[in-house]
């Protein structure tokens, strides 16, 4: 039985016990969103990893294309002034 043909792929995001944001943990197959949440609970939270689950159908994700790597990312490479490392932080501000 080829479940991958029958059930769409879902990406799973879990917010951990102390985490502020949901993090991508992996993917799974499920018939619908509710089913995906239950499967995510069983596959990815067995060891008490999470307090919240998001699922999104993988087909709904729009991803950047690896072939556009040059135009997308290289222009940022020589613009070091975008990092706030050229400021002197006054002592009284403390650790940032």
């Amino acid at each position, binding site marked *: 039985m080829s*479940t991958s043909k029958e059930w769409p792929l879902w990406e799973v995001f879990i917010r951990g016990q102390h985490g502020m944001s949901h993090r991508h943990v992996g993917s*799974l197959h*499920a018939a619908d969103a509710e089913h995906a949440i239950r499967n995510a*609970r*069983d596959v990815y939270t*067995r060891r008490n990893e999470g307090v919240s689950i998001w699922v999104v159908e993988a087909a709904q994700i729009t991803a950047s294309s690896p072939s556009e790597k040059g135009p997308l990312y290289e222009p940022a490479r020589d613009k070091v002034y975008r990092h706030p490392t050229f400021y002197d932080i006054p002592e009284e501000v403390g650790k940032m």
Partner: protein
Amino acid sequence: MNHLFEFLLRQGDNALVLGHRTSEWCGVAPALEEDIALANTALDLIGQTQLWLGYAAEVEGEGRTANDLAFRRDAYDFRNMLMVEVPNEDFGRTLMRQFFFDAFQVPWLDALQTSSDQRVAEIAAKSLKEAKYHIARSAETVIALGDGTEDSNARMQAALAYLWPYTGEVFVDDDVDRAMADQGVAPLPSTLRGQWTATVTETLTNANLVQPESGFAHAGGRSGKRHTEHLGHMLATMQTLQRSYPGAVW
């Protein structure tokens, strides 16, 4: 007869036998996700077994442990309802049985939370959280398969026909049940029939499945008088290590 001991064996043996049957899917379920979900369910049930049989062993006071009760009793000493010991057959029947069981366990454990016996109340409270997740999953799957393809609907209808005569056993009160009710340990199982029927009817309707009309019920598991021929085979597998190497430990 020690009624409390018998009562605890019934709870523990239901969980143990269904837990073992469910574990038989480990590695061979129709999808990885379902495989892990079934393994989780099996582990929940075996965890409940440890609590019920651990307490049963204490109540008996003969120096036996939960492990002794699980692995060194023979079929006629088991007190589980017959429904949990019949073979899995296919994924559909396995989930249909799980649903029938959960539809009883949820109101049953809920009622046991107010048991006059503190230990029973504590075990029930812990188990109820697991049972509520089990029924969400089993009911959803029964509906998905019943209301699925022609083939899945036919398999679920066949599972229903096979299991239906096994669903009535648990609601027939006997001396143990009456003793437990008198002591405030547990309600009479017959009082939960209405709630069970309502849950089952709603789900089967949503699943496009036709509820059988027969009221015939197999019996003999809870009393240990007459198990099916399947239990002995299951125990032979489950108990083989303790039977071959008595007292073996990790």
